[in-house]
């Protein structure tokens, strides 16, 4: 009798585990809700529509950067140039807007972003350089070039045009952040494309088994070149939106977001070795990190403790995730 109960129990546990394995987004949502609940307990009354709006507004640029990391990681790569590319775009936009208007400035800002992506893609896809090395090198080059540009541009000031501020910093109906106008369609396209489009499946195929993909006729090099260009453009977009959120732009504006963008994807359950994961998890991961930062701020923990907790939580979530999703 008791033996039977134990078997049933373990079977139930097994079912629960496999159910969770198929829906890794569920524990993430629970974690997010738990963090929000904890925040409300720590400081009653903080969780309000305007707070949610603010959190989402700050999470959107991070979530877009996480899209770059998600897609590159699905192929077994990584893009460590996203943060400097985002900073570059915001700075290029802000320095040119007085001359060419907001639309021209946005276009001008996204061209170098795409160019950096193209260089990354050629290095990774055609020359087979390790993505980590390639993107670290290009980020060195880009941050150097931004410094050079800042020197040449010393007379021209920076300005964030009202159109960008509208998208980044303001809300519809008092609580719906405007940057969702960009982000929601973008997220839907990425989610659908990763699941349903041929190109999306190719990313999974390349990451899962590159040799098999190659033998099946996939032009892996081309897939990667396109991928890194997309990643560069998205990073530029994230920089523009972040400039709108903050209301100003400098050459190093988005640099601190590099490691969080990787962390959001890791928390979101995309395997850094490629072939497994998705964008939905990364979005929740970006939200979790943003709420976590608020929580640590509200606790008024000193910077030291905040950093330690931040790292410890990333590791704990990643470890738990590995336990859930790996075959026992």
């Amino acid at each position, binding site marked *: 009798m008791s033996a039977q109960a134990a078997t049933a129990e373990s079977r139930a546990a097994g079912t629960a585990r496999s159910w969770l394995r198929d829906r890794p987004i569920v524990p993430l949502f629970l974690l997010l809700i738990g963090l929000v609940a904890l925040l409300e307990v720590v400081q009653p009354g903080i969780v309000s529509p305007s707070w949610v709006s603010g959190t989402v507004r700050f999470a959107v640029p991070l979530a877009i950067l996480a899209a770059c990391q998600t897609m590159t990681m699905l192929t077994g790569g990584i893009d460590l140039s996203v943060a400097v590319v985002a900073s570059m775009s915001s700075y290029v936009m802000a320095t040119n807007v007085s001359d060419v208007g907001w639309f021209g400035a946005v276009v001008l800002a996204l061209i170098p972003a795409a160019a950096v992506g193209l260089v990354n893609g050629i290095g990774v896809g055609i020359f087979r350089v390790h993505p*980590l*090395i390639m993107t670290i090198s290009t980020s060195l080059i880009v941050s*150097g070039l931004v410094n050079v540009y800042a020197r040449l541009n010393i007379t021209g000031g920076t300005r964030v045009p009202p159109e960008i501020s509208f998208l980044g910093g303001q809300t519809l109906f008092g609580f719906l952040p405007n940057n969702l106008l960009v982000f929601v369609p973008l997220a839907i396209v990425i989610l659908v494309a990763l699941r349903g489009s041929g190109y999306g499946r190719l990313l999974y195929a390349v990451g899962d088994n590159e040799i098999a993909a190659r033998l099946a006729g996939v032009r892996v090099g081309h897939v990667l070149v396109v991928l890194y260009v997309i990643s560069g453009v998205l990073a530029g977009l994230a920089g523009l939106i972040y400039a709108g959120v903050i209301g100003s732009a400098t050459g190093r504006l988005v640099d601190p977001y590099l490691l969080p963008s990787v962390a959001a994807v890791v928390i979101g359950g995309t395997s850094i070795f490629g072939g497994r994961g998705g964008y939905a998890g990364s979005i929740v991961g970006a939200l979790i990190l943003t709420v976590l930062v608020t929580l640590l701020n509200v606790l008024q923990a000193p*910077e030291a403790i905040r950093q330690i907790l931040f790292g410890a939580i990333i590791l704990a979530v990643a470890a738990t995730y590995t336990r859930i999703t*790996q075959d026992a």
Partner: protein
Amino acid sequence: MTDTARAGEGRLDRAAARGWIGRVVRGDAWTAGLIVIFVALFVLTRILRPSFDLSGLAIASLPVAFAAAGQAIVVISGGIDLSIGSVMALTNVLAATLLVDASPEASVPIVMLVLVAGLMIGMINGVLVVVSRVPDIVVTLAMLFVWAGAALLVMGTPGGGSTPWLRELITGDVGIGLIPRALIVLLAIVGIVWIPLRRSRLGLSIYAIGSNQLAAFRSGVQVARTKIVAYALAGFFGALGGVSLTASTGIGTPIPGPYLLLSVAAIVLGGVSLAGGRGGLLGPIVGIYILGLLRADLTFIGMEPAYSQVIQGVIMVVVVMVGAYVTLRRRTA
């Protein structure tokens, strides 16, 4: 023995010989080439500025050279340590805090203590990688925050102090003023730790798990233990880097410097494969010196630091592209 068998044997011998020669050439040619580039750059620097002294460069490069050595060991074992800059910051402030009021007699055990602390920090990284089964890059990314936070906990703002003998140890030249003392300290410490290790069973295990973890496991290598040792060594070298920061600056700074990127750049230049199992420690160290000389040269010809960063990045890209292209050609040929 039949002729065919003998012919076959001869072919085997030749193949073995070619493999052996190829290995030496491939392994050492890269380092030799780097040394040639280094000497050429040094001569160029002397021409540009006859008063140029290598010892300043050696002191400035010492912390990051140690970091590159530590990073190289982890990468050879098939991992990567993103936390090495934070570990350096932590040991840097630890040393500066403990040394500020220490008597010269007490300072020796204090330095030892900091190095042991670095070893323990690295060991913690390694244990977490092994136990959590999370990829190395993620674990050390998380630990990057943890150790940086710990450094801030030890010391909120730059401060503390050093002890005179540390500075004297790395300042000046030996002999006729050609070989800087900091370079000798670096080579001596790295040599004492690495040369016996590389020849030992443990060193072979480090290369084995980096080359093919499953094959190493099936051949009886203690994969988990070896990994922890590799990370512990990286922590140890990180601590050496931290202590040499204390020695050269005289204070502790809790904010990690750009040492992570530089250490990765150096191992790539130094011919260590990021896939693991290949490379040594000399190449990355020469790589650090080349990058340093290059920076000095670009300053001497009046170039702004911003440009020299761009040029460094371009050189890295070109080097890795050429390296990758050569490997690709060899594989398809």
